């Protein structure tokens, strides 16, 4: 009986009237969802923009000089005087976090901007020109992707001699490959579309078709990838400066602070926890922003 009942229910679900009403509901739901993703995107891009502004003006809110060494007050626990405690030479952790944020955030943004541009140019040329050039460049990206990326980045950063600028160069040296691949594949798929062929047949020059037709139509996936990569690059930069290759030592930077705190982890956990939470908060914000961009531009795909 149970089976028959459920079968009847299934049959009911297939009646024409219900199909119509269901699809109307579906359309309404889809429209609502579209509005919601738009709203989400607007909210998260506002929050991300606020973050970009905040990390620049944050040093003004620092209660103490981030470089001021106070050897009488080393490793003091969080209190009213030092809200997040002090580190191994008595520097105020809250001040250092506020002053160090812009390095992490803007280094990551710079890496994404540079790699997305270079990768897109290379990938577009590969996809458009094709032939031997494409084969050679794709083998080079294969080789780059075969390297253990962290070790490669560390090696390049060490070769260039550390420091923020060199760290950015080192991170760019390996992460351009994924953009090149993405740009190549999307250019190759757009290239086969009828409207591109129509543009070529009607006599547009190859260059104008590339810049006016192919590129605008293949940029979507690059933008999604770039916006989702910002949080990854923040993590990567934190890792690099954790190893002492991100920023020079006296400058406050979150990864460097975690490195300093590692020595005092057992006696003064706040030297690690607060900078770690700062990285975490920024990565979450940028991650949500990237997700919302992905949902907006890739509505059919599930998040992954």
């Amino acid at each position: 009986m149970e089976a028959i009942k459920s079968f009847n229910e299934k049959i009911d679900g297939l009646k024409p009237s219900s199909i119509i009403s269901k699809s109307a509901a579906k359309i309404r739901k889809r429209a609502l969802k579209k509005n919601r993703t738009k709203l989400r995107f607007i909210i998260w891009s506002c929050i991300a923009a606020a973050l970009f502004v905040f990390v620049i003006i944050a040093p003004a809110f620092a209660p103490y000089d981030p470089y001021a060494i106070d050897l009488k007050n080393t490793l003091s626990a969080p209190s009213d005087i030092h809200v997040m405690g002090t580190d191994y030479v008595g520097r105020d952790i809250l001040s250092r976090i506020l002053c160090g944020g812009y390095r992490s955030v803007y280094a990551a943004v710079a890496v994404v901007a540079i790699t997305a541009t270079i990768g897109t140019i290379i990938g577009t040329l590969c996809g458009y020109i094709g032939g031997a050039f494409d084969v050679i460049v794709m083998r080079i990206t294969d080789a780059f992707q075969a390297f253990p990326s962290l070790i490669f980045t560390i090696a390049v950063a060490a070769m260039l001699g550390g420091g923020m600028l060199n760290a950015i160069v080192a991170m760019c040296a390996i992460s351009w490959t994924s953009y090149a691949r993405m740009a190549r594949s999307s250019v190759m798929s757009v290239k086969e579309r009828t409207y591109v062929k129509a543009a070529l047949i009607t006599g547009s020059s190859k260059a104008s078709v590339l810049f006016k037709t192919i590129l605008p139509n293949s940029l979507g996936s690059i933008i999604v990838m770039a916006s989702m990569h910002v949080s990854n690059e923040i993590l990567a930069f934190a890792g690099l400066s954790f190893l002492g290759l991100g920023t020079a030592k006296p400058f406050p930077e979150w990864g460097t602070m975690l490195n300093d705190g590692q020595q005092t982890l057992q006696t003064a956990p706040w030297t690690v926890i607060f900078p770690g939470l700062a990285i975490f908060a920024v990565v979450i914000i940028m991650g949500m922003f990237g997700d919302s961009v992905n949902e907006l531009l890739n509505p059919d795909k599930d998040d992954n």
Partner: protein
Amino acid sequence: MKKYIIKRLLWLIPIMFIVSLIAFFLMYLSPGDPAAIYLSQGGDAPDAEALAALREQLGLNDPVWVQYGRWVGNIFRGDLGTSIFTGNPVAQEIANYFPNTLKLTALSMALTLAVSIPLGILCAVFENKWIDVVLRVLSFINGSMPGFFIAMLLILILGVRLRWLPTISSGSALGIWMPTFTLAIALSASYVRQIRNAIIEELGQDYIRMERAKGIKEWAVLFKGALKCALPRILTLAGLNFGALLGGTSIIEIVCTYQGLGRLAVNSITNRDYPLMQGYVLVMAFIYVIVNLVVDILHAYVDPRVKQQYMKSAVRKKVRLTDGSNKVVQ
């Protein structure tokens, strides 16, 4: 299929050639004279005569291409050079540390799968219900934390507060668990999400609807139908990650003071031990490429759909080649 494998194997040659070029020039262009680094290890400035002699002996005065050729030639003889810092052959140094990293990687991968497959199934079955939402939020939070921060928190909680595990991993039987837990936690963030999505995708397929319509029990539909079909994809993902992970555990190894290959590599960079560094980069890139190749081929054997795709793409290529000549636009 055989043709495909041979083609992939042949592609390894140019890739490894480019890898070796990059590895060589990365170190060749690095600042500092290897001979000077070697001689100044005792702390004294090297004297000019000994420096010149050593440069001659190491062949550093030869043109670049001769040096590169000699380096590659030695590699084919199994000689990766001698570590400047320890004086041991690089191959031996890598062989000493590799089992530790392999053990760590395998253990964390196994733990990750053991945790994320059940959680992923749970999420997929209760799609968009509270349990799915909670797990997804947790995995998002987890994925936003730097690995070394997770490691430090674990050291603080499991090592310092609860005293379950040693805070320093080297030289203790339980030591491997601290970096293993860290990696498993860090990895499971994306795994739960991907497994969830893979199973949801399978559950939406026609064959699942068919099985349900036939009245097969829901658990059988899930485990014998959806999971069985999603599993090859999940294991392929794990296999590909395995290759990347072997070269990506350095920071965790450093934080947990685990005697692994990644820690050795980072130390070799800070010590300017170029031969060791070159050897490491080359060996890891080689392993990565091979692991990817093996996983791709295994995937095709396990999943008939993928195998068919290879066949199809081969057929399609042939078609395109024959009608490519009369294309209007090239």
